[in-house]
C-alpha cells in the first residue's frame, strides 16, 4: 500500500521561506494535481518529493517510510520533466533503458521490459530513432516511457505538457489520463493550467505563495471555492467578484441592486464579497443588473460578453446563436443560490463546506 504523506513541509532558501508547512495525504493510485501561479511552490514541492531539493523542515513519507534523507533512486519514484530531459545522442531504446541501468536484470529482460513499455505507449517502431527525428508529442512519450520502465510506486510530472502546442496538449492530456487508468499508480502532476488540473485530477491542490489554498475534487474546488483566490483561479473566464453589504434578506450589491440569499444569512451591514460565475449570469432573463456590452467574444457554443454595469466590468455568457453585440444594452438575471459569498478582508468563503 503506497501512500504519500507530506507533514508540515517547509522549504527555505537562506532566509526566504518559499513553502510554509504544507500538509498533504495522497492515497495509492490517486491522481493529484498541484496547481497555482508561478512562484507558488508547486514545483518546489514536487522536487522535494523527488529528492532533487532538500527538505528544510517537516517530513515526506512514501509507502510508510520517511524519505527525507534518501537519494532520489531509493525513493521508488520516477519523474517526467517539462523539457523531457531525453538525451539527444541516444536512441529511443537507450533513452528508455537508461532508467534500467542500475536494475539487476539480464540484458534480455531489460530489452523485453523496454519493448513492453514501448508497446504500451504505441512507439515500438520508433525505438531505434534518435530524439531529433521525433515530434514533440513523441518525445514526451519517450520521457513517460523512461519513467514507466522502472515501474515506480509514484510518478511525478513537472509541467510535462507546457512545451506542446494547444492541440497536442489536449491529446497528451487524454493519453496521460488513460495511462493512469491503465497502470493505476499514484501520480503527482504539477501545472499552472487550471484546465489541465480540472481534467486530469482526482483531487486538485491549489497553491499560492507557498500555502495550500484548497484541496478537493475538481467539482468541489469549482462549485465550493474556499476563498476568492481559488474562485478566480479555477474556471475560465474567472468568477465575477463584486462588493456587497449584508441586508435582512440577503445582500445589497455595490450599485444598490438587491439579491436575496435564501440559504445564507449575513449580518446586516457586514461588508462581503459577492461572487458569481459568468454562466450563472443570464442575459436578458431577469433584470437584477443592467448595462452596456463593451466586448463580445464568440466561442461558438456560447459567447462571452463583457458588460459595463455602473462602471464595473462583469463577464456573462450568452447563447452562441444570437449573441449580443458591443454597444447593446442588456439586462442580467441572477439567483442568490448560485452566488458565492466571501469575507471581504480574509477572502474566505462564507458558505460552509
Amino acid at each position, binding site marked *: 500500500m503506497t501512500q504519500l504523506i507530506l507533514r508540515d513541509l517547509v522549504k527555505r532558501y537562506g532566509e526566504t521561506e518559499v513553502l510554509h508547512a504544507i500538509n498533504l495525504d495522497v492515497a495509492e493510485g490517486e491522481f493529484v494535481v498541484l496547481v497555482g501561479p508561478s512562484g507558488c511552490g508547486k514545483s518546489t514541492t514536487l522536487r522535494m518529493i523527488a529528492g532533487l531539493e532538500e527538505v528544510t523542515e517537516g517530513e515526506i513519507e512514501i509507502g510508510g517510510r520517511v524519505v527525507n534523507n534518501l537519494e532520489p533512486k*531509493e525513493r521508488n*519514484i520516477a519523474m517526467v*520533466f517539462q523539457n523531457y*530531459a531525453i*538525451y539527444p545522442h541516444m536512441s529511443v531504446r537507450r533513452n528508455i533503458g537508461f532508467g534500467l*541501468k*542500475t536494475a539487476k536484470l539480464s540484458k534480455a529482460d531489460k530489452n523485453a521490459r523496454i519493448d513492453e513499455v514501448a508497446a504500451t505507449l504505441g512507439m515500438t517502431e520508433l525505438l531505434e530513432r534518435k530524439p531529433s527525428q521525433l515530434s514533440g508529442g513523441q518525445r514526451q512519450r519517450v520521457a513517460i516511457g523512461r519513467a514507466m520502465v522502472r515501474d515506480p510506486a509514484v510518478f511525478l510530472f513537472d509541467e510535462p505538457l507546457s512545451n506542446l502546442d494547444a492541440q497536442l496538449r489536449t491529446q497528451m492530456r487524454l493519453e496521460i489520463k488513460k495511462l493512469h487508468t491503465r497502470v493505476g499508480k499514484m501520480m503527482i502532476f504539477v501545472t499552472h493550467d487550471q484546465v489541465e488540473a480540472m481534467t486530469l485530477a482526482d483531487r486538485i491542490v491549489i497553491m499560492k505563495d507557498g500555502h495550500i489554498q484548497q484541496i478537493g475534487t475538481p467539482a468541489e474546488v469549482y462549485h465550493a471555492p474556499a476563498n476568492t483566490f481559488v474562485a478566480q483561479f479555477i474556471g475560465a473566464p474567472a468568477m465575477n467578484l463584486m462588493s456587497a453589504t449584508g441586508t435582512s434578506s440577503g445582500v445589497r450589491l455595490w450599485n444598490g441592486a438587491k439579491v436575496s440569499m435564501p440559504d445564507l444569512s449575513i449580518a446586516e451591514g457586514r461588508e462581503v464579497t459577492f461572487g458569481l460565475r459568468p454562466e450563472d449570469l443570464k442575459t436578458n432573463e431577469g433584470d437584477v443588473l443592467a448595462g452596456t456590452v463593451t466586448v463580445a467574444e464568440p466561442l461558438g457554443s456560447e459567447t462571452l460578453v463583457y458588460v459595463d454595469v455602473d462602471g464595473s466590468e462583469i463577464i456573462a455568457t450568452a447563447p452562441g446563436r444570437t449573441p449580443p453585440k458591443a454597444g447593446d444594452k442588456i439586462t442580467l438575471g441572477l439567483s442568490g443560490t448560485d452566488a458565492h459569498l466571501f469575507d471581504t478582508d480574509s477572502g474566505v468563503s462564507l458558505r460552509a463546506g
Partner: protein
Amino acid sequence: MASISSPDTARQNTARRGLYARLSIGQKRTLWAWTFLAVPILFYVVIRFYPTGNAMVLSLQEWNLLGDRSWVGLENYRTLFSDPVFWQVFRNTFVYLLLGTPISLVISFIIAYHLDKVRFMHGTIRALYFVPFMTSAVAMAWVWRWFYQDVPIGLFNNWLATFGISQIDFLDSTTNALPSILAPAIWAGLGFQIIIFMAGLRAIPRTFYEAAEIDGVSTWTVLWEITLPLLRPTIVFIVVLSSIGFLRIFDHVFNMTTANPGGPLNSTKPLVLMIYQTAFSSFDMGYAAAQTVVLFTILLIVSLIQLRLLRDR
C-alpha cells in the same frame, strides 16, 4: 491630410528610382548582402589568398629576397625530403601535437569540470586560469627559462636541491628540452580551453542530470554517457584549434632557446622555426616557401581527419 498617389505618380516614382526599385525583395537583399560581404572578401583575397597562392608559386622557384626569381621546379621539395633536419623537425612537430593536444584537453576538461561545480570565488578562479592566455608568450617564455635554470638560479632545480634530488638539465638535454618547452605552451593555452569547456558544460540542461539522478546512475556513468557525448561539439572545436596551435608552435621554442634556436641539436625545432630560419637567416625564400606548403598540407590533413573522426554521426 492623407493623399493617395495616383497610378501615374507611382509609375513616375518607379521610373525615377530606376533599376533598384524594379528588383524583387529577394534580389535587393542579395545585393545588400554582397555589398557588405565585399569588404571582407577583398581583405581575404588581398591579405590571405594572394600571399598563399604566391607562396605556392614561390615554392617552385629560387629567390634570395633581392634578386630575380628563377624557376627550379620541384627541386626545393626534393631538397626538403632528403634533408635529415627536415625529418627531425617533422618528428618534433608531431611530438608537440601528439603530446600537447591530448594533455591540454584532459587537463583543461578536468579543471573546467570541477570549476563548474565551485561556487566560492568562481569568477576569480576562472580569471586566474585565464591570465596565462592573456600574457605575452615572450615574457612567459623568459620567466619559464628562469624556472628551468641550474642551481642556484632556477626555481625548479632549487626545489629539487632542497629535497636533495640531483638537478635536471631541462633545456640543455636533447630528451628533456622538448617536454620542458611544451609544458609552458600547454599551460598558456589552458585558460582559453577551460573557458570554452565551461561554456559547453553550462549549455547542458540541468534536467539531464536531474533525470539521471532520479534514475540513480553513478557519477561515472553520467560523465561518460551524458556529459562527454553532449560536449562533443566543444571537444571537436578545442581539439582542432589546439592541434593547429601545436602544429604552428614557434614563439615558446624561439624564446626559450634563443642562444641556439631549436636546439640542442634541433631536438626542439618545430617546422615553423625551420621555415623562419630558412627564410630570414639563410634567405632561401623558395625553400622556405616549400616548407610552408608542406606545413599547410599537414594542417589541412590533420584538421580534416579530426573533423571527420569527431563529427556527429
